[in-house]
């Protein structure tokens, strides 16, 4: 547990100061997800699937919409299912921005009544 005081929460969707690389995107996602879950950002494990926190499918899609605006690319509603942790999603978007990866064309249609983030 950190003994440092918790910094005040950034307003929603505030863009990072520096370049939109993997760490900056992960920090942005961590902040936004902590707000949605109403928990301290330091309690969020960026390697843990979104579903282990109980992030709703609605929040996952709304968050992807904000992320689309942040990076200036249309992102599919299922992106958080295809890359189901903060680290994976941030790395993927950073790779797309660098030109090292492409947005998916074909997507798997996971049943919404399933435990849909826990794919592995």
């Amino acid at each position, binding site marked *: 547990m950190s003994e440092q005081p918790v910094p005040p929460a950034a307003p929603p969707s505030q863009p990072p100061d520096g370049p939109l690389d993997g760490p900056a995107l992960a920090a942005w996602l961590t902040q936004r997800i902590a707000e949605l879950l109403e928990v301290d950002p330091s309690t969020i494990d960026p390697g843990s699937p979104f579903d282990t926190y*109980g992030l709703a499918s609605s929040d996952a899609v709304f968050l992807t919409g904000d992320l689309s605006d942040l990076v200036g690319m249309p992102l599919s509603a299922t992106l958080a299912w295809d890359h189901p942790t903060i680290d994976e999603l941030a790395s993927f978007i950073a790779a797309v921005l660098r030109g090292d990866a492409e947005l998916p064309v074909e997507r798997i249609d996971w049943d919404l009544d399933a435990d849909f983030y826990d794919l592995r």
Partner: protein
Amino acid sequence: MGVWVIDLDVAVDDGLLGPAERVRAENLHEPHRRRWVASAVATRTVLADLLGIEPAALSVDRTCHRCGGPHGRARLADDHAGALRWSMSRSAGLGLMAVSERQRLGVDIERVRAVPAAAAVARRYLAPSEAAVVEQAPEAVRAEILLRLWTRKEAFLKAAGLGLAHGLGWFSTAGASGAAGWWRSELRVAEGFLATLVVAP
């Protein structure tokens, strides 16, 4: 057919969980873990009561029909395979469950909350007629209207057995009733929550 509203913030006896549910619960973070356990126990209790058996005797299969993993839609197995269909949704401290003997159904519950840039989200992901409803509303109620439309859409997709792979814009729920043959009802489950039940033809 029946609908249950479940308080997920009450203590439950997790001794009712099966082995697979126990493993899954161990991997979850609080406070989601105890709420997920409460919903799993409620699911077992409701289904077992309808079948006239003990909750611990219920055999639940979560095998994913695509890949064989343990994360699929929960189904009854063994002696009671196919006996009941159900849908479960959770938001904050409330769960909503609908059960039917024959009909495919879907439920979704959403706590009313702030949604940043609700109109932009609606334009990006919802059908044009739905986005228009959100955009034409006063700023103060846009998030609530978006969430209301979302409960309709997610409940419909669940009843249809579909996910999000084809997006959310290919069908509209902006009309006063559901599509022909589909039954849609908005449920007033609790103050500060929106919920919809959809039953397939």
